[in-house]
C-alpha cells in the first residue's frame, strides 16, 4: 500500500507515492531525480545525504519519506542561485576543499546550516559541527578553512 | 655485456651467481640469452618479476634497447593504489 505525500522541496510543491518504509533519501534520488544527496552509509554515520527538514539538519537516509508530509525539505540542489554559488561553494572551490567531491554536497548543506545558526564560529566549533560529515580525501583541513573563509565573507569581512 | 643482477631468491637458479654478464641488445635478446644459460631462471624472471633497466621500472618490456654497460635488475611487481 503506497502512501501519497505532499511536501515542499527547495521551495517547490511536490507530491509522490512511496512505500511506508521508503526513506526520504530514496525518494529524493529515485522519485524526484535530486541525486545531489548521496548515500555513503545508509545509517546516519557519514552525513553525505544531509538535508534540512523544516530548517533542522538531518540525514535523509534516516527519515521516512512519508514523514515529510506537509513539511519543507531543503537539499543541496537549492543552495546556489541561477546567478551565483553560495559563498561556501565558492570557498570550497577556491580552497580546494574537495577532492573526489562525493561528501561535498553534505558538507555544503551542513556548513550552511551552521553558519545560519552561528555566523562567526571558531575553528573548533566548525570541527565539532562537521564531525558528522565524513570526508576521506582531504583530511578536513581545507574544508574547515573554506567554511571559516565563507563565514568571514558572509559577515562582510575580507576572507 | 649488460650486468644482470640476479634476485636474491632466484640465485639458486643461476648456480648462486649474484650478477651475470649477459649479451643482448634488447630485452628480448637478453632474455633469450639468459634462457640459453639458465632456463629456469629466465622462466621465473619472466613470470614473477618486473624488469628494471638502468634504474627505470619497465612494466611491459619487449624491445627496450639494452646498452653494453646497462644495469638490469628484476624486482617483485609493484601494484599501486
Amino acid at each position: 500500500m503506497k502512501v501519497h505525500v505532499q511536501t515542499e522541496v527547495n521551495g517547490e510543491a511536490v507530491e509522490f507515492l512511496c512505500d511506508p518504509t521508503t526513506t526520504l533519501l530514496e525518494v529524493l534520488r529515485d522519485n524526484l531525480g535530486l541525486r545531489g544527496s548521496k548515500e555513503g552509509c545508509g545509517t546516519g554515520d557519514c552525513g553525505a545525504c544531509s538535508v534540512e527538514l523544516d530548517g533542522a539538519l538531518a540525514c535523509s537516509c534516516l527519515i521516512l519519506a512519508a514523514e515529510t508530509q506537509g513539511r519543507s525539505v531543503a537539499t543541496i540542489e537549492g543552495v546556489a542561485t541561477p546567478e551565483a554559488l553560495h559563498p561556501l561553494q565558492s570557498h570550497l572551490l577556491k580552497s580546494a576543499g574537495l577532492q573526489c567531491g562525493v561528501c561535498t554536497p553534505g558538507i555544503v548543506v551542513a556548513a550552511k546550516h551552521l553558519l545560519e545558526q552561528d555566523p562567526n564560529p571558531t575553528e573548533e566549533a566548525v570541527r565539532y559541527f562537521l564531525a558528522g560529515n565524513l570526508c576521506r580525501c582531504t583530511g578536513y583541513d581545507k574544508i574547515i578553512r573554506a567554511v571559516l573563509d565563507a563565514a568571514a565573507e558572509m559577515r562582510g569581512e575580507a576572507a | 655485456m649488460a650486468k644482470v643482477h640476479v634476485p636474491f631468491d632466484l640465485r639458486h637458479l643461476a648456480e648462486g651467481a649474484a650478477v651475470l654478464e649477459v649479451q643482448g641488445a634488447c630485452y628480448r635478446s637478453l632474455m633469450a640469452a639468459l634462457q640459453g644459460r639458465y632456463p629456469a631462471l629466465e622462466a621465473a624472471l619472466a613470470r614473477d618479476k618486473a624488469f628494471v633497466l638502468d634504474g627505470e621500472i619497465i612494466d611491459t618490456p619487449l624491445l627496450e634497447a639494452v646498452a653494453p654497460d646497462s644495469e638490469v635488475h628484476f624486482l617483485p611487481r609493484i601494484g599501486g593504489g
Partner: protein
Amino acid sequence: MSEAMDFKVIGTRPIRPDGVDKVTGRASFGADFSLPGMLEGAVLRSPHAHARIKSINTDKALAAPGVKAVVTGADFPQVAAGAIEGGEGGGDFADLAGNVIARGKVRYHGHAVAAVAAQSRAQALAALALIEVEYEPLPAVLSLDAALAESAPLIDEGLMTSGLPEPAAAPSNLASVIEMGNGDLEAGFAEAALIIERRYQTPTVHQGYIEPHACVGRWGQDDQAMLWCCTQGAFDVRSMTAKVLGQPVGSLKVIPSEIGGGFGGKTTVYLEPLALQLSKKSGRPVRMVMTREEVFRATGPASAATIDLRMGFSSDGKITAAEAIMAYEAGAFPGSPVGPGTMCVFAPYRIANFRIKGMDVLVNKPKAAAYRAPGAPQALFATESAMDEAAQKLGIDPIELRLRNAVEEGDSAIYGPKFGPIGLRACLEAAAAHPHYTKAKDAGVGRGVAVGFWFNVGLQSSAEVHINEDGTVTVIEGNPDIGGSRASMALMAAETLGVPYESVRVVVADTETAGFSNVTGGSRVTFATGMAVVEASKDIIAQCCSRAASLWSTDEDMVEWRDGAVHPRPGVNVEATPLSLKDLAGQAGRMGGPLLGKASLNARGAGPGFSVNLCDALVDQETGQVQVKAFTAIQDAGKAIHPSYVEGQLQGGAVQGIGWALNEEYVYSPDGIMENAGFLDYRIPVASDLPMIETQIIEVPNPGHPYGVRGVGETPIVAPLAAVANAVSASAGVRMTELPLSPPRVLEALDQA
C-alpha cells in the same frame, strides 16, 4: 630542466574544471546513473568465513514477485590462471573470477554466492532470502599464525608456495615467499653497538572511500555490453570483466562515472560481472549498489601485517645491519602487497648488510586490495619505529639519525637499482628547520618523526588534444578524476600551448572514446597521463609550425613556437605576423583540417617520492585516548602542478594514516565475522579529531617528466603510522608496537609500564 623553467600557469591554484558540478550536487557518481526499464540487483553473501557449498537451489527465488534473473557461480565460465597486467601486481584472473562469485567453496564471510535482479530493491532483497544454500562449514583461519600453523585448514587445497628454492612438497596457506639480501648480516650485527629487535603489527584496515561500489550493466542480444560504474580505471574494469565473463574486450564498453574516492580499492571488479550476467539473463539493464556493510565485508581491505625487525647501529648511529621477516595477509586469495613491502622496508637508508623475507599468506578474510602505496605503510611503520627507538637510545636527534643514513642520488636502493635525483635529504633538512620541530613541546606531549617512501609508477596512458575553431582546447583522456587531476591536465596543456587555463576543458572519456590508459593509481596520473597531455599538446604545436611555415612559404625549421604562437625564428627573413593558436584554429579548414593532437605512451622515469612527517600527540593517562595536537607533512613532489591539490594529497594521506595508527581495524568474532562493519564502529577520523595538517612541498624535479613531476598520491600515507606511534610512545613513556593505538591498547601499555 624545470628548475630553469619560467612557468606561466603551472604552480598556480586555479579552480578545477569540474568544481562547480561537484559543489552543487550536479556531478554524477556511480549510484546516480539510471536507465529506463532498469532492474535492481542484490548479492547473496556467505554467512560463513569458510565453508564448502554443497548445493544451491534458486527455484523459489526465481519464482518470487518481481524477480527477473538469478545467477550463481555455475553461470560463469571457468577462468584460466594468468597475471593481471597494469600495475596490480600479484593479481591473477582466476582468483579475480573466484572472488567475484564463489564456486564450490566460500572463502570469507561476505563472499558473493548468488545474485538476483528484480523490479525493485526490496523484491531483490526478499528473493535473496529464498535462495537455499547448503553449506558444510570449515574451520576459519583468521590470523597469520593460524594460517602458517603445521596443521592449518587449507583455504585453497591446490596452493603450492611459490618462490621457494625447491618446489613446495605439499599445499599450504603460504602463497609465496620473496627474499632479498646483501652483505654479511651477522658480521653487521657483530659490529653494532645497539640492536633494536621487535615485532611490529598492523591490523586489517579499509580504504574507507565514502562512495560505495555501484554500477549499471546492460547486455544486448548482439552480445555487446555496456557498463556505467565508479572505478579508478575503466579500461581495467573492461579487461577484468571481459575475462570473468569469457567475452572479447571489444564487446564491452565501460563508461566511468565520477568517483567518490578509491585509494586503490576501486582498481578491481566486484559487482560489474554480476550486473552484466544478470542483464544477459533478464534482457534488462541492471543496477547494483553496495551497502556500506557490503563494502566492509566484501571489498578491498589492506593487509594486516606482522613484521619481525632487527636493526643494528654503530654508536654514531650508522645502520650496520638490518633484517626483516614480513608476513602479510592476502585475504582469501593470493596477492598481498608484501612484494613492494619488502622493497620499501629499508628503502630510505644505506644498508650494506641486510636480509629481508616476505610471505604472502592466505586467511579467511576478504581478498586484500591496493590501498595507497600498497605494502609500504606497514613496512615503514616497523622501520621508522625502530629508528625512533634507536635515536632515543643512542641519544641522537631522530632527524639527524636519519640524515646519517639517508639515501641520495647515485646510491643503490636496497632493492637494486640506483636512485636518480631524490628529495629525502631535502625533506629531512626542511623538517629539522620547520617551526613545528624547533618550537618547544607542550607539557606531556610526545613528538614523533617518520620517513615515508613510495616508488610511484608510470604505465600506459593516452591523451588527445582538440583545438576548437575559436582556439579553445578540449583534452580527452581516460583517467577518472579522483582528486583534481582534470585541473592538472588543463594546467599542463595550457602551459605547453601557451593559452589561458580557462580556455582548456578536460574530458574523462569512456573506453570507446579515450585511448587506452591504465588505472588511476600508483600516483601515476599527473606524471604519466600528464606526460601524454604534454606530448599531445606538442603534437599540436608541431602541426601549427608546419602550417605556419607553409603559409609563409618557408621551411619548418625556420619557425618556432613561442608564447602561444608561431614566430619566424630570430634572424629569419620572413615578413610575417606571429600566428596564434586561435589564428590557426580559425583557418584550420583551409589548412588541412581540424587541429587534433594525440599521444600514447608507456611512461618510464617515474621518480620515487620521499616524505617526512612530524606529529605531536598527547596521551590521556586516565583513559588512554590519544589527541593529535599538531601534524606536519613534508614531501618531495618534483614539481607541484597545482599546489593546493598536492597539499590536499599530503593532508588526506596524513589523516588516513592517523586513522590507521589510532582507530581503524577490522574486529573479528572467533568464527570470522567482522563485528564492526559500519562507520559508527569502524571509526575513520572525523573533523573534530584533528588539528590543521601543515604541509611543506619540496621540489626536487624528476628528470623523467617534461615539467619535473613525480607522483604524490601515495607517499603521504606511509609515514604517519610511525610518526603517530613515535609521538604516542614518547607521550606515554612506553614503546607502542601494535596498531591501532586505541584507548584500551594504550591503557594496557600504560598499566604494564
